[in-house]
């Protein structure tokens, strides 16, 4: 069975003062479109970006990104 990486970034943005994709992108050096692609699971960020995202939301990477079976 195929697996894909999903994440909770959209929810976490909402819970962190309704942060926009553009604001998150600016803080981690990504464009708004790339943040949107990550949220949709269509692009897997580099380890560095994943760690930056985790640091911004104050959570471990594995709590934000995880495998999910299709």
């Amino acid at each position, binding site marked *: 069975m195929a697996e894909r990486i999903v994440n909770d970034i*959209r929810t976490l943005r909402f819970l962190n003062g309704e942060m926009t994709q*553009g604001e998150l992108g600016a803080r981690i050096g990504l*464009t708004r479109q790339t943040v949107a692609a990550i949220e949709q699971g*269509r*692009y897997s960020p580099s380890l560095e970006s994943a760690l930056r995202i985790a640091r911004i939301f104050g959570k471990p990477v594995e709590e934000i990104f995880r495998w999910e079976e299709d």
Partner: protein
Amino acid sequence: MNAAMREEDCGSSMPFQEKRAWLSLAVTIVIYGAFLANVLATPVGALTMVRFIILFTVAMTLQGVILAICISIFAARDPEAAKAPLDERDLQVSRRSATWAYGTLMAVVFLLGLGLPYYAAVGWQITLAMILAMVAADMVRHIAIIVNYRRHG
């Protein structure tokens, strides 16, 4: 509706680099299509190397001018996206696209190397074949950029 949702609904979802690729692909097809049609419509004996070079120079100049104008318009409509440095996904797409284009160029040049000695009668035909190989590689690069942005976001 919260601010995050509003931004996602209103903002352009197409990356600036993808817009550029669409534009470059369209301009390349139109300009080099017209160039090729013009060259092929001229009888082989009637087309001198000088005329060929003039036609190619006109095509190249037109392409550059049209691209510069259109990209300026895009940039004026979305200055932040135009000024933003390439991020990791942009660089990844760029590398993949260059790889596709390089493979295309190598394959076409290889085939031309096999076929040209038998089919090219005059000098400009060899030059035309090389130009078309480069145009084909450039078109593949633009297509690869579009496909990779679509597939990866």
